């Protein structure tokens, strides 16, 4: 299940994630984003960019099955996750991992146990092996030596990294990350980017990540969707290089801080 080999061999090219005409909204409030259409390809690192408060985390909630969209569909590996209620959601949930913006670690479990939870629940591995795997995942995000600490007793960045390790526990073929490198120091952030890159290139994992870090975007994101408040939807889409250097959409220019370009044009 967690290998792209399987999912691709099943029935042709089913994209890991596809949103069709999706409306993002909170109950009782006007919609934040309307008519979103986008796809994430296997092995791709898809960035979701946009100003704070434009609805990125809310979009993620719709994509991972936590909030039924007012309109539109979400397909995960070709299956409409909201089509048959809880049933299709349960099936889809085994195919992706999520890291929440605030970490959302289980507070009464050590970091090692946090990472072990999905392994214990969903595999038949023996406890020793689970411990090794969980420790390996923590080591990947640079948390060796903190295995037995409780989330309350580690720093904010460490919580974040442990949350990434937990999302990686089963190595699902699709991972949603909400601002993985926000609040990390540049060195840890670069290591994390490298890890995400390796997993995408060598294991074919697909990443859908919300991020504000320009450096991280330029380094690993293959394709980015820039959300805009003005049009309540996708302002711009393309490779980071294109968005940063060529795009003439005002949102892209503002986001990538190309003030100089804008000034030149105005002249």
């Amino acid at each position, binding site marked *: *299940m*967690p*290998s792209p*080999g*399987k999912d691709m*061999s*099943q029935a042709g090219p089913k994209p890991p994630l596809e949103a069709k005409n999706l409306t993002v909204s909170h109950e009782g409030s006007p919609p934040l984003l309307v008519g979103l259409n986008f796809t994430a390809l296997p092995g791709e690192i898809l960035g979701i960019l946009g100003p704070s408060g434009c609805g990125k985390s809310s979009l993620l909630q719709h994509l991972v099955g936590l909030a039924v969209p007012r309109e539109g569909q979400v397909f995960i590996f070709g299956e409409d996750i909201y089509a048959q209620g809880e049933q299709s959601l349960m099936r889809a949930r*085994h195919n992706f991992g999520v890291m929440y913006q605030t970490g959302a670690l289980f*507070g*009464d479990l*050590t970091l*090692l146990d946090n990472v072990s939870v999905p*392994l214990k629940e*969903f*595999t*038949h*591995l*023996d406890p*020793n*092996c689970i*411990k*090794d*795997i969980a*420790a*390996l*995942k923590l*080591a*990947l995000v640079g948390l*060796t030596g903190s*295995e*037995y600490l*409780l*989330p*309350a*007793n580690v720093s904010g960045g460490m919580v974040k990294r442990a949350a990434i390790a937990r999302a*990686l526990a*089963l*190595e699902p073929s699709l991972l949603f990350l909400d601002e993985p490198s926000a609040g990390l120091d540049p060195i840890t952030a670069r290591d994390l980017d490298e890890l995400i890159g*390796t*997993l995408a290139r*060598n*294991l074919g994992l697909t990443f859908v990540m919300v991020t504000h870090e320009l450096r991280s975007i330029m380094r690993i994101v293959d394709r980015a969707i820039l959300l805009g408040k003005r049009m309540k939807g996708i302002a711009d889409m393309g490779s980071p290089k294109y968005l940063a250097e060529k795009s003439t959409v005002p949102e892209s220019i503002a986001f990538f801080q190309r003030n100089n370009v804008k000034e030149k044009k105005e002249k």
Partner: protein
Amino acid sequence: MEPVIPFKWEGPDAEGTVRLYGNLNAFSAPRPFLTKKQVKTARNLTFDLKELEHLDLNGAAFLLSQFDLLKQMGISSKVQNLSSPLAPIWELAQKSFPAPDSLVPQKGPGPIEQLGENIWHFFKDLFELTTFFGEVLVHFWGFLRRPWRARWASIFTVAEKSVVDAIPVTCLVAFLVGLILAFQSAMLMQVFGVDIFVADLVGIAMIRELGTLLTAIVLTGRSGSAFSSELASMKSNQEIDAFVTMGLSPARDLALPRILAMTLATPLLTILADLAGLLGGNIVLMSLGHPYMVFWEELSSHIDISDIATGLFKSFVFGFVVALIGCQRGLYAESGPSAVGEATTHGVVTNILVIAILDSLFAVLFYALSW
């Protein structure tokens, strides 16, 4: 959840080569893998990954974990024919795999240490409660000197949420207790033809003891616990820290309004509870054939102002104590999510204990003063 290309292995053969096929990940990892019997004769094992289609970090970690087990049996293992897409994964796994015996959980405390810790915690709690009590008294003094400067709006909000909203449940409980008390005693008293004294029994018990006690316990469970959990979750969200760094005082701005609201409103709730309990007693008496007013006439000839005063005095104290301990447990909670639950539990337990102890002390005191 089955992988499409299942994992298989062959061997070990005479040279100690184990061939792996298919797709190795957390779901396809076999259990058991190599049995003791299979590897009995081998000294060195070679794992041939030539035919392995897919290997993820979990699969690699599984193999490395097996290598550790084999090593403990004195067998060394290595891999060969690693295909190029798998090599970086294998390397990454090897680099990050925990060193053997590096994963030892911290040992929990022994029984003696635990005993010491408990005693230490008891005195620490007592110390913190006393400190907090002092702090609140200081602010209380400030309130008495300038009552118009208090946050009356929040005092009234708390009073409404914590006491007024508790009226139905408190009155229902008091009513039923009065009813049961009257009913049980009436059975016996009727035999002697003195069932009219049920009124005095229920009246004195309710007004002096039960009404006050019931109200205090209902408020502990309903409102004191809410204070603890509210403040403890504020604490674990660093909201209390934000309060302090803004130059505000949690004791003055968070605890005092709650404590004042409870202290002022609990006696009123107690009066209602008393009345509900008496009504329960009266209903039993009426069902025995006495007219409605008999109960009250009997009561007024045996209850005097000191009974009512002691009950109300105690309810002031209990209201104060319930809010004080509830707030103290919340504000002094550890941070972390389980701390909210712990703070609430401790708050309720401490409250019930303290109420019971205080009530006994009051009983002795009032007896000595013959009130």
